[in-house]
């Protein structure tokens, strides 16, 4: 921001595609990437006479979301028609919700870096979330004088999640979005694929001098990655401040983010007034969610990220950092818990291996936990060998690399490479004696009080056993021998 007296006020509208197999109002498929218009039935195409019937899973998913953000789920809600003419909107109206949405006020807690390694907690209000149908796609590139319309996406169920204007910076906006993204994926209601448009964001941004009423806001569309959201909001804040400071005014308008330039640009003024002429859709009846229906969905809610993280800290004694990392996705958390259970190893040791070694390795090879070449059972198998002291932690790194390379399970690798730890005291004593004999100078220094040389002797003795000596035994015996 160009001046500390300015403050931005940001609200986000997120369109989240629900993971149903069929469309919100018809039995056409919703799969991504099909040939144009091959998933467009009569209802999708807005043919005359055909009628919408609500997909029960779409409703269930919307209610699931509402419960997960602590919102009130409407006992009775209605669909309304929102009218405007556009070729990707086949009926001339979008079936949406207006006055009575399915999900009312809720909230989402976010965490921000305080810049000094700590976190700041903030709560962002959710105004509402409503069900609606997605529009199709306009393809402008293929033709010079025409636009092609693909309606496969039309009718895909969405929830539009509207935040309160509680967000003050681009970083908060990103933190909110990431949290929301994690939540909907956790809930299994959205695949979260931003590239395919499953999770899309419009940003409402205005600026004001601190303490003053809200300024005029603009709506920036087409910001479909976390990075773009940050860039678009930052650009828009700067632009608005510059505009006002140079004596101009902010016009309430829709703007489009251009990822190539990092700028937002005013869209052609569509209609002098967007008069959507909402009214209750007479083809659809009021939706009633009974207390039993809601209780049933509540009972089936998965453990949410917050609760899981708290449990990981408490039950496994993990640090807040590790707990957050390991609960960042449902799959990762499940992987971790499976490793703990199957290995019988200490939870912290498991956490280190999963959060640091495994995630680091996956990151390097561009895979995620679902496609990890090392299964949770395989990793647990290796950890067992650490627990029963067959291998040391150091040797385990070598075993891990071999497992990653597909050389088999831990036991196979340990055997093939002869990595079994030496715990036989006589063998270790022999190695120690050799080392002491070869380094009389260092021995004399050590004995005259240079304790730091202990590490030197450990290293030498380890080297002599090709790293296979049990470190505890080695330490104990070395101390005895050095003491003379």
């Amino acid at each position: 921001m160009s001046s500390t007296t300015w403050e931005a006020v940001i609200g986000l509208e997120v369109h989240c595609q629900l993971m149903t197999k069929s469309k919100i109002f018809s039995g056409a498929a919703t799969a991504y990437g099909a040939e144009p218009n091959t998933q467009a039935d009569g209802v999708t195409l807005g043919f005359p006479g055909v009628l919408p019937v609500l997909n029960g899973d779409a409703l269930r998913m919307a209610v699931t979301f509402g419960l997960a953000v602590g919102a009130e789920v409407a006992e009775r809600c209605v669909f309304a028609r929102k009218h405007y003419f556009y070729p990707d909107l086949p009926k001339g109206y979008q079936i949406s919700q207006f006055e009575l949405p399915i999900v009312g006020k809720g909230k989402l807690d976010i965490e921000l870096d305080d810049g000094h390694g700590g976190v700041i907690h903030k709560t962002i209000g959710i105004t509402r979330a409503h069900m609606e149908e997605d529009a199709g796609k306009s393809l402008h590139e293929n033709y010079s004088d025409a636009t092609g319309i693909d309606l496969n996406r039309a009718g895909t169920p969405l929830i539009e999640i509207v935040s309160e204007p509680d967000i003050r910076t681009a970083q908060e906006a990103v933190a909110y979005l990431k949290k929301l993204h994690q939540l909907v994926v956790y809930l299994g209601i959205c695949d979260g694929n931003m590239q395919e448009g499953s999770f899309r964001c419009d940003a409402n941004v205005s600026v004001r001098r601190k303490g003053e009423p809200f300024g005029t806001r603009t709506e920036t569309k087409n910001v479909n990655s976390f990075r773009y959201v940050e860039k678009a909001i930052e650009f828009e804040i700067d632009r608005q401040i510059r505009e006002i400071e140079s004596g101009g005014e902010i016009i309430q308008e829709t703007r489009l983010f251009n990822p190539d330039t990092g700028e937002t640009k005013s869209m052609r003024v569509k209609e002098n007034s967007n008069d959507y002429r909402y009214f209750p859709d007479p083809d659809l009846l009021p939706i009633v969610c009974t207390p039993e229906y809601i209780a049933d969905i509540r009972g089936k809610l998965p453990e949410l990220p917050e609760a899981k993280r708290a449990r990981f800290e408490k039950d496994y004694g993990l640090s807040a950092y590790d707990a957050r990392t390991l609960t960042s996705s449902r799959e990762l958390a499940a992987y971790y818990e499976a490793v703990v259970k199957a290995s019988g190893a200490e939870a912290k040791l498991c956490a280190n291996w999963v959060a640091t070694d495994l995630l680091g390795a996956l990151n390097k090879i561009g895979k995620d936990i679902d496609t990890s070449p090392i299964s949770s059972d395989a990793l647990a198998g290796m950890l067992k060998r650490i627990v029963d002291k067959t291998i040391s932690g150091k040797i385990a790194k070598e075993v891990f690399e071999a497992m990653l390379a597909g050389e088999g399970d831990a036991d196979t690798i340990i055997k093939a490479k002869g990595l079994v730890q030496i715990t036989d005291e006589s063998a270790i004593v022999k190695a120690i004696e050799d080392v002491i004999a070869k380094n009389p100078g260092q021995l004399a220094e050590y004995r005259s009080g240079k304790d730091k040389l202990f590490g030197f002797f450990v290293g030498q003795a380890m080297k002599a056993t090709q790293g296979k000596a049990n470190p505890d035994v080695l330490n104990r015996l070395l101390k005895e021998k050095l003491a003379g």
Partner: protein
Amino acid sequence: MSLHELSLRELGEGLRAKKFSSRELTQHYLGRIGRHDPALNSYITVTADRALAQADAADARLAAGQGSALTGIPLAQKDIFCTSGVRTSCGSKMLDKFIAPYDATIVRKLDGAGMVMLGKANMDEFAMGSSNETSFYGPVKNPWDVERVPGGSSGGSVAAVAAGLAPVATATDTGGSIRQPAALTNLTGIKPTYGRVSRYGMIAFASSLDQAGVVARSAEDAAVVLQAMSGFDPLDSTSVERPVDDYVGALGASIRGLRIGLPKEYFAEGLDPGARACIEAAVKVFEGLGASVREVSLPNAPLSVPTYYVVAPAEASSNLARFDGVRYGHRAEGVHTLEELYKRSRGEGFGAEVQRRIMIGTYVLSHGYYDAYYLKAQKVRRLIYDDFRRAFGEVDLILGPTAQSVAIKLGDKSDDPVAMYLNDIYTIAANLAGIPAMSLPAGFHQDLPIGLQLMGNFFDEGRMLNAAHQYQQATDFHKRWPKGFA
């Protein structure tokens, strides 16, 4: 007796007794259409080949001892119902080339019952009209006087049945479009309870008011076909999951003790004395059959026309937004921008009455007017509904006129929308409330038919048809034929 004078029951018996085949019957009707329809214009599309193929299939079913009471019997489908492979125009230039790749549920049901579709009946454009003068395919003439209108919007359906160009026809009723034309052509027409017959595949005019039904030559004929059309349809969210009563089985019951209410608002000024005389005579017939008659009040009935002309255009403006020249329907030529494509395709594709209603509907839904018009109308709609609820606490059926007078001459009111709208004054309330209602012949004034309207409580079609049938056992108005078409 000629084939076209037989009732549906007689036709069914004749077919099963092999007195005639469905092919012969179908050819008989196709012949009459060829001879008489040029004077009436009741069909937009005649589907002779399809009809004969259906007739042959019906004959095969009958020969095998299969089929229903309707197998092999021809009918006309109002051109508002989508028919796979056959143009469905809805009376509009917009859909002049529209062939749906699906059937309306009622088409599927009646095809399934073995009925033979002769063709698609003319209608007011998108069912918007009370005189069948708004059709892109030209006006329909009333067989009782070809200088006069047959009523609308199901003008083609009634003209075809009244003139013996189909034994029965489907129709739709949003504000009286079954009952008013039935009254003006001496037919029996029934609009069942909203939600009783599926709306799937029926091109929407006003979704919360539209209901499909039948026009026939008697209550008995209407009962048979309505029975086959009715029932739950999972493709229509507004379809009611409730078994269909046995309408045919209930026809013969006595109506002794039936309580009939006469709404005083329906006998106020505006009702033509000739029509009034017919209705009053009919009341006497019902009393003679053992019904008790008393006055009831529907105090908000006078507000039904203004309420309707907010609700119906509002829904229509929305329902007709899909006709944009992009995926089907009329598309203007030589357009260079999207806006031009929309405006010209719609401006050229829709006729004046449809455009008027779209504009009224757009206006009443637009920002700043919604509360004053649309919301207000929805509230008054509740008052009208409550009136009926109260009345049906006192009586079983409500009886009154269907129309203020006999059919008007072609062109008489077509320049004055408001005067035309007032034609529907007696019929609209039933659509707003969602209750079943029907019209049946009640005599003649100046040699032109007068219709009597019965309105029933929700899902009381059976009781209504029973009363109508008993009345028709005591009268013979419904048996008369228009001159030149016998």
